């Protein structure tokens, strides 16, 4: 396999994003604004911002990339460019890898900006290394992107695609442990939470935030996140059809 096609695809996706400066601005500005809001909402509860802020830096890219990729792929379907690409010597993997590279880069910038604001301006204090929070954020972005690419196959319109966000992302946010500790949830919810990839993503982030030397367990959690991302990329590939009715 030659890297030419995936790299060209990544470059094309990034050029498209550059033509949409408002989207880029929102991707970069919204997380720091929300983090600032969080800090001052919980200003009376010391420790809360430190507990939630760190993981949030790593979870924003998951949410945003899920939305952006599901709509971007839906557009490829509805404008006929996907059908054209499927008639060209481009493998499905080339296309999905191209998307992966482009959005991972965007996620890295997003997480770096959010971290700079959180750690630099807002005084967020975490025990582990900041680079780990950014690296986990990029991993979570890849997870969000793969789930978004897969989900987009089930949306006919952009209205439907947008609804997949609350349908697939919100339950994971509620159960992952960010808002309430999982061990205090009803048993059935606690067990369900282990089947959700965001739970593992959150655990890795929580370890990076609270443990000075997070080590092996973070690696395990991150491996689970990337494993789920790969599986859903595989599922997304099966939804790209060369022949249609």
């Amino acid at each position, binding site marked *: 396999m030659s890297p030419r096609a995936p790299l060209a695809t990544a470059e094309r996706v990034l050029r498209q994003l550059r033509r949409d400066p408002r989207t880029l601005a929102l991707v970069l500005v919204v997380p720091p604004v929300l983090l600032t809001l969080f800090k001052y909402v919980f200003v009376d509860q010391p420790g809360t911002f430190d507990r939630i802020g760190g993981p949030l830096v790593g979870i924003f890219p998951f949410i945003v990339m899920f939305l952006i990729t599901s709509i971007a792929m839906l557009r490829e379907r509805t404008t006929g460019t996907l059908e054209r690409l*499927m008639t060209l*010597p481009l493998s499905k993997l080339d296309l999905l890898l191209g998307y992966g590279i482009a959005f991972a880069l965007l996620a890295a910038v997003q997480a770096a900006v959010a971290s700079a604001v959180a750690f630099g301006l807002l005084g967020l204090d975490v025990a582990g290394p900041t680079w780990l929070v950014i690296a986990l954020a990029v991993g979570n972005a890849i997870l969000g992107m793969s789930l978004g690419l897969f989900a987009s196959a089930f949306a006919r319109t952009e209205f439907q695609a947008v609804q997949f966000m609350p349908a697939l992302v919100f339950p994971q946010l509620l159960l992952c442990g960010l808002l309430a500790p999982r061990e205090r949830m009803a048993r059935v919810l606690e067990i369900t939470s282990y089947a959700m990839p965001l739970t593992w993503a959150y655990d890795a982030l929580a370890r990076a935030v609270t443990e000075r030397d997070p080590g092996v367990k973070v690696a395990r959690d991150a491996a689970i996140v990337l494993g789920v991302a790969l599986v859903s990329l595989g599922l997304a590939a099966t939804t790209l059809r060369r022949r249609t009715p």
Partner: protein
Amino acid sequence: MTTAVPAVVVDGLRVVRGGSVVLDTISLRVQPGSVTGLLGPSGSGKTTLMRAIVGVQILAGGAVTVLGLPAGSPRLRSRLGYVTQAPSVYGDLTVHENLDYFAAVLGAPRARLDAAIDTVGLEQFADRVVRNLSGGQRSRVSLATALLGEPEVLVLDEPTVGLDPVLRRDLWDTFHALAGRGTTLLVSSHVMDEARRCDEIVLLRDGRILAGKAPAGLLAETGQTDLEAAFLALVER
């Protein structure tokens, strides 16, 4: 010419979509290095037939062979160019950026970009964002991307819709120049006066082939002087 190995062979093709028969057991042969016009009213099955030849259509029966290979074979992807009726290019990229991307996917040399832009007459618009171009200009961008790979077979779905007469004439000249170099072209249209510019025409109606022969032969057979009348004569026969 009839002794040459056909570039496209359609044999007993049937396509059923949503429970209704779109193409009803049609057969056809396209000679290499020719321009074949696919004509018929909208809804007659032109696009479906083209999709079957490109290999993106799920078939209910029959077989389609392109350059000796089953339609849709991976090896055909670099040898066949397809331009859909709605321009399938990226509206948020410039003309040049679109061609740049498709050239990279096709593995075509960059030198062909300018030639393709010239062929469709978009030199002054190369750095314009496609979204801001007119409908006819957008469909020419789509056509240019298909020319990049210098395919042996070009399938063009209504490439001249929305174009002014001068540009339409120029494009037809281009089609014949390509055919002169050995490219096989299949061009659909619902404008009958484009039919006379084809080496061979296939008239399609309600998923069946009414006639398939050279324009002159069709006029002689129906005893008409223009193709529009010949088509009507065939329909009412």
